[in-house]
């Protein structure tokens, strides 16, 4: 834990009648990092982030911002991108940005925000006549309109095509480089690995693991997976000295010692031309921790 965390969450609980959506979670977030909350749908990520945003009240627990309970200034200093929201219609993108800019005491330079979020070419278009990717960029720009110290991004790339998603990631990278602190929820592991400095994995309302992506992978996953076409091995499979499985004409070998594995395969004259080596990912971390896939 950092000496001076920007945000401290202590024993946070949210109950809806009999359902415990968030079950006594605690964590802190240092200034300037991108903190990822990952987990499957229904894990409690959005409920957690909305309690921190002050959009819904917690059942119990404490949320400290800069070491103190959140004051009326909190909303002046944070930016929020929700999973799903709409905007006042019939306004152009520039008018929408100007409207939101007027709601803050210390707004950002609107031209800079337009450039960061790649909105210049479409700034005169009505905000309800743009594509999904463009809308997400506009929502991100609105979240940035007050140059926030703390930026909340709730599943920012859900529903976007791969190109729009990568485009959004590059914008978030630019925001990170400006030094803004970011809390991001996602169920895309590639997104978390690419953007987050620290990650908390949530399941059933609890945080089940926490650390940097590398730490989590090292701690919860062992070895690598070597994948070869079935016909590249000329000896009976039963004589292979590894744990393996055969799927769709391919052999997947799990090993903790890649050098020894490759030496054995070469000594048996295996054809390695089409071989691939897969390192473990956060998805494997989650699978190992919970026994289920992230998108289940």
């Amino acid at each position, binding site marked *: 834990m950092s000496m001076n965390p920007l945000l401290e969450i202590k024993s946070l609980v949210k109950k809806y009648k009999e359902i415990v959506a968030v079950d006594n979670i605690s964590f802190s977030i240092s200034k300037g990092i991108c903190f990822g909350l990952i987990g499957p749908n229904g894990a409690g990520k959005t409920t957690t982030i909305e309690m921190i945003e002050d*959009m819904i009240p917690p059942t119990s627990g404490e949320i400290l911002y800069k070491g103190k309970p959140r004051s009326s200034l909190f*909303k002046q200093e944070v930016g929020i991108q929700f999973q799903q*929201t709409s905007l*006042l219609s019939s306004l152009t993108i520039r008018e929408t940005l100007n*409207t*939101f800019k*007027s*709601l*803050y*005491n210390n707004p950002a330079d609107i031209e800079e925000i337009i450039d960061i979020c790649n909105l210049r070419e479409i700034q005169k278009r009505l905000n309800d006549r743009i594509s999904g990717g463009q809308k997400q960029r506009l929502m991100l720009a609105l979240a940035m309109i007050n140059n926030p110290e703390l930026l909340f991004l709730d599943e920012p790339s859900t529903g976007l095509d791969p190109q729009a998603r990568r485009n959004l990631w590059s914008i978030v990278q630019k925001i990170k480089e400006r030094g803004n602190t970011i809390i991001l929820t996602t169920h895309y592991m590639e997104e978390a690995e690419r953007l987050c400095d620290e990650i908390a994995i949530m399941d059933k309302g609890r945080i089940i693991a926490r650390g940097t992506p590398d730490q989590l992978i090292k701690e919860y996953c062992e070895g690598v997976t070597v994948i070869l076409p079935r016909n590249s091995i000329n000896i009976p499979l039963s004589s292979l000295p590894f744990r393996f499985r055969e799927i769709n004409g391919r052999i997947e070998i799990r090993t903790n010692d890649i050098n020894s594995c490759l030496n054995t395969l070469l000594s048996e004259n295996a054809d390695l031309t089409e071989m691939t080596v897969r390192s473990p990912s956060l998805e494997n971390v989650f699978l190992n921790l919970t026994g289920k896939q992230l998108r289940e």
Partner: protein
Amino acid sequence: MSLKRLWAMLHARNLEFFRDRSALGWNFLFPFLIVAGFGIIFGGKDYSEYKVGFFPSQSETVSIKDIDIPSGFKDTRFIKFIGFISFEEGAERLKHHKIDLLVKAGSQSNEYWVSDTSPKGYIVEKLFKASLLPENKNIAEKMEIRGNEIRYIDWLFPGILAMNMMFSALWGVGYVVVRYRKTGVLKRLNATPLTAFEYLTAQILSRIFILMFTLAAVWIGCSLFFSFKVEGSYFDLFLIFLTGSICLSAYGLAIAARGTSEEFTSGVVNFITWPMMFLSEVWFSLEGSSRWVKLIAKLFPLTHMLSAVRKVMNDGASLADVSTELAVLFFMTAISIAVGAALFSWNR
């Protein structure tokens, strides 16, 4: 409260309204069409209250002078005569209340048929019989009301404007705010420093501006086609309409304080607007109605607004003369704002 934030929301909402061409057009066109329609129906020389069939006739429309029925009856105003080839054809129309009385043309005994269950038939039968009696000028003395005549269109016009104001306020504030809540617009605004008071004030001010703008435009538009008589002061009328629009917008706010269901809100708005439209004397007077109907009517702001407007427009009353109506409107506004503000939720 931040005036900058309030102005930003007011400006954005006005842009949204004025750029929605279809809604904007309808807001102006609807009252104009109603006033125009009633102007044509009640203002024209051909208006008739009763329909009297006669037979035999070769065509449906025959010149009055060619119809062989008692001249005293023929000359009665507000009766339209419709010809039928045979008795059977006329009787069929009478049976279905498409005409109020059927007369046999050229009959020496002045034969006629009427439906005993038809109120209009009863009246027109009396007219028919009276027209057959010799005129006795001493039987009743006609007196004249001195002063300006109030035409129906002069009485109706403020009612139509006020009704349009009511629909625009309740749907424009009530329904729109619930829609914003459902789609997440309010949630997004709640993530900013904007306060509920600033947002709601902007909504009401925006709606009042739209209502008064529409009122002025429709008034000017209708004045080009109809000459309305205003006995009192235009400034007083403006103030009464302004007070009424504040009250109706506040009503809309109270309706929109909670809820995310557009269908439910639509039902609530209909539940309020329809009785208000019929019981606030927009279309007809409640004179002679039962006491409880009049009491219910008093609960509606439209009743008091219309009462004040008609007193100024038709009778030349001053603001002091309508101070009771204005006081009731202010009271209703205060109650609605208090309820709306106390119950308002950004999310639920």
